[in-house]
């Protein structure tokens, strides 16, 4: 159930995610080894546009990438087609966007 466009979208979002995942891992290692407290972390992320963009981009890429992946599974394994398949794909994308962006907002908003 992959059209060429969906295929490209999935590859491009994967390309975007790869360095962001590495960045995220580096941040985690830094935060834990430096022994940063929650407060210290939040004081750096709150009001920071770069962190909002960093994690915001990640959330957008994940939402698109995962929705396409689940779409293929739903089509090939559960034989979902047509409207139902589109509805499922968009709903998952929207849910991941909502949950992810809300989380990003809560650590980066002032």
């Amino acid at each position, binding site marked *: 159930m*992959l059209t*060429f466009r969906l295929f*490209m979208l999935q590859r491009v979002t994967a390309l975007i995610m790869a360095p962001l995942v590495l960045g995220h891992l580096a941040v985690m290692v830094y935060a834990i080894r430096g022994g940063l407290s929650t407060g210290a972390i939040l004081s750096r992320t709150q009001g920071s546009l770069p962190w909002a963009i960093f994690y915001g981009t990640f959330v957008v890429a994940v939402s698109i990438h995962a929705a396409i992946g689940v779409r293929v599974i739903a089509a090939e394994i559960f034989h979902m087609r047509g409207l139902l398949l589109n509805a499922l794909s968009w709903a998952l994308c929207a849910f991941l966007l909502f949950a992810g962006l809300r989380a990003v907002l809560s650590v980066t908003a002032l």
Partner: protein
Amino acid sequence: MSSDTKTLDVSVWRGDSAGGKFERFQVPNQQSQTILDVVVWIQQKIDPTLAYRYACRVGMCGSCAMMVNGEPRWTCRTHVLKVIRDNRIEVAPLRNLPVIKDLATDMDPFFTKWVKAEGVFHPTSSRDDDIVKVNPSSDDRILADAAIECINCAVCYASCDTVQGNPEYLGPAALNRAWTLVNDEKDGKRADILDAVSQRGGCHNCHSQGSCAKFCPNELSPITSIAGLKRETIKSFFKGR
């Protein structure tokens, strides 16, 4: 192993598109016997109504493929000894294709997809032109040659889980043929082929797990051809087609 057992216990699928069931036959165990020999023996000695298909018996024509103990195989070149389990053999029609009768499947969807994938030669010159020389050691020709020896047996098609999950998927054989033509300097419609394999059901649906290459009796690697098609379609996408 069964070499000391006098008879083979053979289950053969009987039926048509509406359904069917396995029927058991006792077949004499002989030396150097192929699965096709066993099927022929049943049809000639026990039940002349058994339907199946073959032509060359030497692995050239690609018409004898069936499921043998659950795996797709060219039956004329599959030795009984190689596949037998506990003296039992189960023979069924090829997976992923409609059954006409017993072991004979309807190959129409398989070949329709070859055409859909533009797996047909698009000539660039007529019989009045001189024959164009093809350099056998050019990069393109080497790629085409690696995929060219397909006998259209549909073994790969039957092994492909993506075909099973998505009946629109063009499948390994049609895409493998398209890849040979993309690399054929005498073919005049490279862009059309890349376009055809980028439609719904096209090469981008392949999961790259490689059953096709594992089962292809001619040791071709459709998965490699499909990876080539993906690469070329992405390239032409960025070049703005």
